[in-house]
């Protein structure tokens, strides 16, 4: 089995941003993404998903390292000041590299 290294970029942010974020990801050449509903706490306080305004989403993007950095830089610039958001990256191994 041939395996290849890619980057997993994880974003946790406000659910209100989902539509915009998904458009950004397309524009920034992500080949795909996975979203789950989440709640949490951070600098901007507790976001307990009790209703729309306090819900989070957790978005994962598998891509190559450059794309991940480009996406991270772009999101950080656009959203970090005004939105509850964290970003982190890790190295992963994938089986079908052409997909990502």
């Amino acid at each position, binding site marked *: 089995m041939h395996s290849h290294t890619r980057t997993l970029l994880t974003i946790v942010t*406000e659910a*209100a*941003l989902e539509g*915009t974020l998904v458009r950004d990801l397309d524009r920034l050449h992500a080949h795909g993404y996975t979203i789950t509903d989440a709640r949490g706490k951070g600098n901007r*306080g507790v976001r*307990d*998903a*009790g*209703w*729309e*305004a*306090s*819900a989070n989403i957790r978005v994962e993007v598998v891509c190559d390292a450059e794309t991940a950095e480009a996406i991270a830089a772009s999101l950080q610039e656009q*959203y970090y*000041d*005004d*939105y509850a958001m964290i970003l982190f990256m890790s190295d992963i191994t994938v089986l079908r590299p052409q997909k990502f």
Partner: protein
Amino acid sequence: MIDPVILFFVLGAVAGLLRSELRLPAAVYEFASIVLLLSIGLKGGIELARQPFGNLLPQMLAVVALGLALSLIAFPVLRHLGRFTRADAASIAAHYGSVSVGTYAVAVAYLGSRQIAFEAHMPLLLVLLEVPAILVGIVLARGLSRETRWGSVAHEVFLGKGIVLLLGGVFIGWAAGPDGLASIEPLFFDLFKGILALFLLEMGLITAKQAGSLRRHGPFLVAFGIGMPLFSALVGTWLGWALGLSIGGTAILATLAASASYIAVPAAMRISVPEANPTLSLAAALGITFPFNVLLGIPIYHALSVWAHTFARG
């Protein structure tokens, strides 16, 4: 006698303040708000079918003006007295120029249980009041800059859940008429107040969570959250009276004016004026104004309306 739906709000608020583990699943809250929005729209639509549309045009224009005016008045107060940033002042002003469907529903329940009639096209005015303040808010925050993507703002505003369900309900009610709707009455009309009770239970829980932010952001927000609706209700009462609305209709218009949005406007501001702090506007609109209106405001606005009509006649 106090309406039981109000008691559900109190129950939720108390449970929330005591940090109870009571929580409604988000899906139940959404279910309740979908049914309420459709139901309000349907009722409006039924009645729209009964009267010529032309008659309503003056009222519709007046109500759009009301939304614009209230947010334009709130802005300088927030900016100068409240010392908020431009974005925050614009965003809070937009919340108060727009309306809260939950408050409207409580007012309808209030009048209903006292058998006070009101003009049936009120849901239409509700829809009309929802939108203009949002546009004002964006312009106040940004200026009339070229950069604002009005296309996507319009999409956000007119195709948001609230407006689509309200207008969709109005359209279906208008097209099907009272007889056509008989078969769906048990869900949308008979259960209305029960579902409103569940909705208010959850609103109580959500309101209780605003207590923390209020403590942090101080007394100005509290004063504004009570003073602004009282002022807006006066304007609304005057406008209702001037437009020749009935006592009930005037009370509803005053309530609409006094209410502050906590669904459509927060969502729109979050996308269009992201630098505004959503905690501030929600703390005021949900933490102060909503409970004030629901517990004390509506009876006051009703009394105002009675007074205005008596005064005018006498």
